[in-house]
């Protein structure tokens, strides 16, 4: 999967998320079918499900908050399964959780099989403005540098105040401000180095050849999503 063209993978990911989000709140069985893409991506891409699930932690609170009240507010009984009433709220809560789950897994499949440079290349191909793409690449690169800078500042603080738990709130502004200024200085130095090495305002990303499989991959998946969404699979 890593060798596929990034634009195809980006399109599949976006189309998948749009399709998943478009399902009706009670369309549970159709939504379960949409698991075919993450299943394929995780098995063929040899990805860690644990890592994918770990990513749920950030979006989970808001999704749970929004969905958790559905069973109490929508008490319309849709059916009885083994004598247990299944209400609309129960179904819509599960559907909402599944939507959140699938969309996180789809984004994870994209980023785990595609480097940030390739995603930026795909964004340039769909005419996302150059300045935006450069800023995204720089944020990604500077993130590590800033982490190291913060680590140095925190270590220095700990050495200066050995018996203190955490950083005193009075020092927050100074430390964070210092961190920002040092990072800006560093960014300017990096920029000057880039200029000396011939940077002219744009990254040169080598063009990639489009192999037949990179064409077939998005077309096949988009067709599958359309078929599932339209309800044409009516085998049960």
């Amino acid at each position, binding site marked *: 999967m890593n060798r596929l063209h990034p634009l195809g993978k980006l399109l599949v990911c976006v189309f998948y998320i749009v399709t998943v989000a478009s399902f009706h709140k009670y369309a549970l069985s159709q939504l*379960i079918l949409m698991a075919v893409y993450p299943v394929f991506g995780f098995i063929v891409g040899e990805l860690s499900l644990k890592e994918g699930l770990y990513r749920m932690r950030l979006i989970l609170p808001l999704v749970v908050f929004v969905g958790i009240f559905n069973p109490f507010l929508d008490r319309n009984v849709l059916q009885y399964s083994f004598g247990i009433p299944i209400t609309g709220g129960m*179904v819509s809560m599960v559907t909402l959780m599944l939507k959140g789950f699938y969309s996180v897994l789809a984004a994870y499949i994209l980023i785990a099989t595609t480097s940030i440079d390739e995603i930026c290349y795909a964004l340039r191909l769909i005419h996302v403005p150059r300045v*935006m793409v*450069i800023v995204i690449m720089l944020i990604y690169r500077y993130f590590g540098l800033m982490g190291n800078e913060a680590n140095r500042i925190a270590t220095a603080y700990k050495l200066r105040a050995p018996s203190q738990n955490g950083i005193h709130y009075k020092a927050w502004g100074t430390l964070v401000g210092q961190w920002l200024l040092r990072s800006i200085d560093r960014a300017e130095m990096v*920029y000057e180095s880039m200029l000396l090495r011939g940077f002219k305002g744009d990254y040169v990303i080598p063009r990639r050849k489009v192999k037949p499989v990179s064409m077939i991959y998005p077309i096949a998946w988009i067709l599958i999503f359309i078929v599932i969404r339209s309800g044409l699979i009516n085998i049960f």
Partner: protein
Amino acid sequence: MHMADALVAPAVAGTMYVLSASAAGVSVNQVKKEDDPKKIPVMGVMGAFVFATQMLNFTIPGTGSSGHLCGGMMLSAVLGPFAGFLTMIGVLLVQCLLFADGGLLALGCNIWNMAFYGCFVGALLIWKPIMKKGATKAKIALASILGCVLTLQLGAFSVTIETLLSGVTELPFSVFLASMQPIHLAIGFVEGLITTAVLIFVYEARPELLWGIGGTNEGRVTDKEGKLSLKNTVIAIAVAAAICGGIVSLFASAFPDGLEWSMEQVAGTTELEAEGGAYDAAAGIQETTSLLPDYAFKNSESAAGTSFSGIVGSLVVVGVMVGASYAFKFFKKKDGSASAA
């Protein structure tokens, strides 16, 4: 504040994408006009800075909840509204791809809720007018706290509206609003304090880095000239925030359902009905594609059976897909080792 894909319907997401893309288009043109190539690495590093600070959650006292910085005000105070807006888009895109914080489909909503208000409303309507005649510490505190509180309130309000319009929750408008606004008032206030601390440090160390500062002497004005004392400003804002929070909460809980109330005022009913060929066709399509049309399965044994078998059937298909994927992987490896040999 980051919305997940599950919380938005494609129509709402599409609309917000169009709005956010329009603002991004204007910003790209403005940044091009400014033609300051040195700004680009600063945008990158400021983006990484906001990215990092957004990962640090602070506890909201007395609520059992926590929040993180939004960063729009801080970005626009250093970069200006247009470059700040573009940087924030970059931050949100990297966050949603790398950390699954916010979704790709919901990106348009998140840009609007977190970047648009913070960068445009915060910078152009709050920061710039306050800094027009030069900056003081008190003015920076006033602009930061007021900006963060107001823009977060607007953002939280938009989250409520977007989620309700998407139809994913059964929560009434008033309940959702009452839970979103007060907590973001507290988060906005803490963010305002942190932003104040950072910007005052930058102002003292390198005032030329701040955007939109008018007046003379590199924008520096003494506190006496500025007629605002830092302590009094912070106290006044704290009192105002507490009063506003109380009033907003009272309004939110006093009225039953703002959305339904508005609909009733306009249409005379809370259930809007539509007639016509297009609606009938759409209803027909919906009936065909929906497995549970019009909740018709209630007390219907055969329908219940169909639905149950549908879910089981879907699980079977997914199971088949698991097998097929392993088979695909097996043959792919076999093919790879054969070609290597």
